[in-house]
């Protein structure tokens, strides 16, 4: 949605005196200088060149915040009415940039060091050693392979979610009750879910599901073999996130023009025909949006794996996130773990961009 010129036109005669402009610039540069001076001083203190300093870098943070505030204020002081418009976006932009860009740059630096939190030397650059280690790390590639399986599982979730949305959209009583109930799993934290289902209901001796299976005559073992363990993780994740897709699809269904469906009925289409030829094509944009967002969430999957299987058996259920989590938690391998994370980020960006390119023509609503 690109509109030339402001959607909301404001005509104001701004006469900003030179003194006001100078004041604004002085504010920004003054606070920036203060921040730099504090940072330099603190750095000198940490490297031992200056005797006195602060315990932490917190004063530098305060100076940074002061600078950010000054920058916002200066927009209005220097640019007048135009600055007031900038002020809508600037705080959020500053917030995101400072919380993402700096850490990302920093991450890029530590990913090429041999930093282990347990070692006393601190970070030492070690060139491409981490990359070589990653190349030979079977567990990392295995985790990436698992992510492919996990992402593919979204298709099954989509089918179930679509079915539920159709059910909720049909002529039923107590629709609100069913909607609330179907929504509930989404509200539960993955950690609680991993206890409620993974550790208690699927417990081999006393869990209700194991009991049921034993009554049927199957000896339950949910996290013994790789395939079943992976399936269990997928099922638990699906259980929490199916409502998410369901609600999006339901909203799409309810926005469909009812005349078209009635017209197809008048023309003699059976239920399945009108679904295949009318509802499904019309729902394509919503479906694609829901699937894309769901895949983006899926790529962050970790909590359930960390708490139920810790990646076992033999890394069969590991997602990249849970693998790096353990790399950090158990081995304090900050440098190597960060490199893995950065590589993962690059892969995700390539994958998501390609996916968006591929599906963007279906995301538009047919006119």
């Amino acid at each position, binding site marked *: 949605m690109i509109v030339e010129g402001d959607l909301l036109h404001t005509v104001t005669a701004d006469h900003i005196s030179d003194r006001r402009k100078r004041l604004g610039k002085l504010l920004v540069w003054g606070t920036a200088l203060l921040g730099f001076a504090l940072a330099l001083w603190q750095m000198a203190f940490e490297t031992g060149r200056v005797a006195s300093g602060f315990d932490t870098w917190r004063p530098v943070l305060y100076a940074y915040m002061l600078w950010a505030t000054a920058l916002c204020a200066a927009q209005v002081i220097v640019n007048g009415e135009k600055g007031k418009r900038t002020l809508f976006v600037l705080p959020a932009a500053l917030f995101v940039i400072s919380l*993402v860009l700096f850490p990302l740059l920093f*991450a890029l630096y530590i990913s090429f060091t041999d930093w282990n939190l347990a070692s006393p030397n601190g970070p030492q650059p070690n060139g491409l050693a981490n990359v070589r280690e990653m190349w030979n790390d079977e567990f990392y590639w295995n985790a990436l392979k698992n992510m492919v399986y996990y992402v593919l599982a979204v298709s099954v979730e989509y089918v179930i979610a679509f079915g539920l949305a159709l059910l909720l959209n049909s002529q039923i009583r107590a629709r609100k009750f069913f909607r609330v109930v179907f*929504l509930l799993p989404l509200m539960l934290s993955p950690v609680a879910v991993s*206890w409620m*289902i993974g550790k*208690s209901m699927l417990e081999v001796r006393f869990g209700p599901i194991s009991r049921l299976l034993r009554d049927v005559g199957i000896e339950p073992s949910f996290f013994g073999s790789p395939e079943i363990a992976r399936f269990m993780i997928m099922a638990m994740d699906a259980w929490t996130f199916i409502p998410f897709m369901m609600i999006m699809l339901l909203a799409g269904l309810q926005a469909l023009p009812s005349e078209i469906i009635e017209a197809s009925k008048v023309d003699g289409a059976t239920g399945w025909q009108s679904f295949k030829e009318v509802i499904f094509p019309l729902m394509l944009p919503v479906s694609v949006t829901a699937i894309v967002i769901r895949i983006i969430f899926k790529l962050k999957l970790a909590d359930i794996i960390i708490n139920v299987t810790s990646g076992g058996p033999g890394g069969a259920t590991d997602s*990249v996130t849970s693998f790096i989590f353990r790399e950090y938690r158990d081995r304090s391998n900050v440098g190597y773990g960060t490199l893995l994370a950065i590589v993962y980020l690059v892969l995700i960006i390539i994958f998501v961009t390609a996916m968006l390119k591929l599906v963007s023509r279906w995301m538009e609503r047919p006119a």
Partner: protein
Amino acid sequence: MSAIFKDHDVAGHPKAKWWTSRVAIYAALFFWTVICLFPIYWTLTTSFKLAPDVMRGNMVPWWDFTPRWKGWESIGLSPRLIGEVSTVREEFFKRFWNSTVISLSSSLLAVVLGSLAAYGLSRFNYRFGFMRNSDISFFFLSQMILPPVVLALPFLVLYKSLGLLDSRIGLILLYTLMVLPIVIWIMRDQFQGIPIELEEAALVDGLGVWGAFIQIVLPIALPGMVAAFILSLVLCWNEYFFAALLTSTNATTLPVMVASQTGSQGINWWSMAALSSAAILPLVIVAIFLEKYIIKGMAAGAVK
């Protein structure tokens, strides 16, 4: 004679078909209801069970087992212990309070920052360097794909040097960052639905852009903001990854507390069940009473 039979047959057939479809629909609905509710039911009832009840697989309270407060006593919340001093209860309430403060304030911060940005992007044209409006929107929304692992380790080191490790402020900032793209996604949709003539009238009547925004647009967009706020609240309340890495004693949230109990050997089923129930109950209540807003928030991006 045969004509009557035929007539009867034609009239009866759709009715039978209608009934089968009814039965099928309700059967499917009830089947999924059981799938959704059984884990919650199981957790709630287990929190009132004793060890033998768990082992025997008793399920229905007052029918095959007598409810006991043992599980809730282990976090200091039972009729017997409620008047007494209890360290476990204090511990629990500390975590609960941390979770509440962190999720409320980060959702609030995200809604404020996100609404402002979304309003600006839906009304004015910006140019920051090479970035136009659509680029800025994409920049905000693209944060959604940023996996938490990438930020976690740098933040750990950064927070250590800033003295923000194991503090609520640190988590609040991160959670705000995490939900901000979602808030902007929802709010942009909301503001685009508000006719621009309203603000034009306000500007003619002498309000500034900020005056028009606060006095005219905000009240109209309030339901959307509530939706965004509640969705953020849910995400922040349930967040585990950052909390597990960046907190240790002071600022730990409920999910971390739940997770740390599962790690220990020989889980106490009743106490884990009580703890899990207490952790999920607030959001279950939110879901039941504010379902309208949650659905509104999630549907915002789907339907234009």
